[in-house]
């Protein structure tokens, strides 16, 4: 689905990503964990085209996308749920979702009402709040709206940037259940998290990132059992 080879990117002269390589297979949840400042968000911004890659390749479904403009990449089927939700605060919940489906309007067989109903089935609270302004929603509801908006584009790969930040544990659990459900319905997910334990528990595979490099990769349960990962990210002392 997604294949990244020796990717380098950054801001101005600062190189944040140093020869990153990773891949995501169809139908799996892959998680990328790492501390603040490791470059996780920069990596997502580069995949979505918000930042230009300096070197390396990004392939989505076999097609190179590292030179495409951000809005073209969304149309190729790669949607990002950005850090901090970034909903259209001054617009209604429904308008937010409708705009999410923007790239699909012209494609044949896209049924806006049916797609909206799917999202409302996944997040019943959004159906209740259709006409409310997105800025007045709670943090958890905004996160659901941001996910719903990304799903409206019917992406083949959905990427989530720290969906659990600032949310109550119960809501985090709910969000992670929904991510699992998305995978079970055949979606491909790239999940970026600081909450490493929760992320690894639902993921199939994982990558650990530190100062712009991938330092460990493997199956999620292997990473959960890995002593270095445990010490650094799972808050567990290993004697």
């Amino acid at each position: 689905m997604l294949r990244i080879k020796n990717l380098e990117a950054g801001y101005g002269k600062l190189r944040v990503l140093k020869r990153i390589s990773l891949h995501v297979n169809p139908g799996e949840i892959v998680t990328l964990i790492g501390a603040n400042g490791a470059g996780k968000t920069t990596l997502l911004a580069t995949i979505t085209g918000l930042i230009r890659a300096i070197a390396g390749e990004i392939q989505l479904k076999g097609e190179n996308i590292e030179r495409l403009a951000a809005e073209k990449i969304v149309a190729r089927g790669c949607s990002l749920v950005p850090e901090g939700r970034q909903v259209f605060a001054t617009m209604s919940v429904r308008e937010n979702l409708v705009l999410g489906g923007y790239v699909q309007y012209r494609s044949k067989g896209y049924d806006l009402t049916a797609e909206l109903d799917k999202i409302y089935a996944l997040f019943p609270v959004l159906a209740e709040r259709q006409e409310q302004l997105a800025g007045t929603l709670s943090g958890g509801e905004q996160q659901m709206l941001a996910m719903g908006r990304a799903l409206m584009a019917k992406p083949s790969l959905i990427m989530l940037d720290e969906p659990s930040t600032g949310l109550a544990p119960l809501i985090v659990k709910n969000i992670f259940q929904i991510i699992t459900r998305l995978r079970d319905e055949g979606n491909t997910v790239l999940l970026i998290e600081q909450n490493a334990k929760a992320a690894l528990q639902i993921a199939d595979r994982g990558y650990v990132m530190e100062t712009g490099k991938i330092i460990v990769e493997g199956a999620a349960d292997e990473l959960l059992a890995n002593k270095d990962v445990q010490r650094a990210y799972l808050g567990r002392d290993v004697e």
Partner: protein
Amino acid sequence: MAPELFVQYLMAGVTYGFIYAIVAIGFNIIYNTTGIINFAQGEFVMLGGMLAISLNGLVPLPVAIALAVAITMLIGALLEITFIRWLDRPSVLRMIIITIGLSILIREVALHVWGESVRALPYFSGNEITTIAVLGARVSPQILWVIGACSLMVGTLSLFFRYTLLGQEMRACAANRMAATLCGINPRNMVTFSFMLSAGIGALAGCVMSPITSTEYSIGTGLAIKGFTVAILGGLGNSMAAVAAGLLLGIIEAFSVSVLPLAFQDAIAITILLIILFVRPHGLFGRKDAAGLKEF
């Protein structure tokens, strides 16, 4: 004050108020998608009037106006594509200086093409001396054309932003540019559209006001100052507040004539602008906390 005189002043105030409001809405539309003030907004009004006057001899008046609006929209789009679109993350100051440069450029080109003479479109219905009675006062039917056309524009614009996909895309860009990009919306196109839309409404206002106020190459500057005052007075970016603020300024100006010499009329707008900038820079209807989050 006699009631007829009161109505007379009020009608004049409302007329000018709507014109200021349209210029202010033009400012707001571009401000919302780019975060800058387009100081060439007044020039769009001038261009609309001038083009319609030139075309009027060749084609019937309604066609001339429609063509003038279309051409001005095209010019708006061209200016944006040529001077702003290709800039990579320009600073607010840089873009503002560019628009000031554009306004000078348009004015000088207009001076070369049309000269210094003052022109006007013919009255849409009747002529200079036709009047109709409104609550005891005698007003020109053109005043009703201005009020009608401007309220129609305001209404159509609010429906456009609320219910059409393009309008929603533009609002999305204003609300969160990065998220709009992630939805597959091209923000650069939205900026071009916003210049076209501003140019279009400015040009239409320039046409309907021309019979009353006349049009010459330099009217843009004065209108831009009045429109800017109104936009700030209402709170930048808020188009409905701009209408209220526009009417307020228009009416204050109209009634000032009864107490102050006419020469002071233009000073009033500047005074209000200064007071607002000192006392309530977020505008009468703007929210202070929201203003604090804005770059400009």
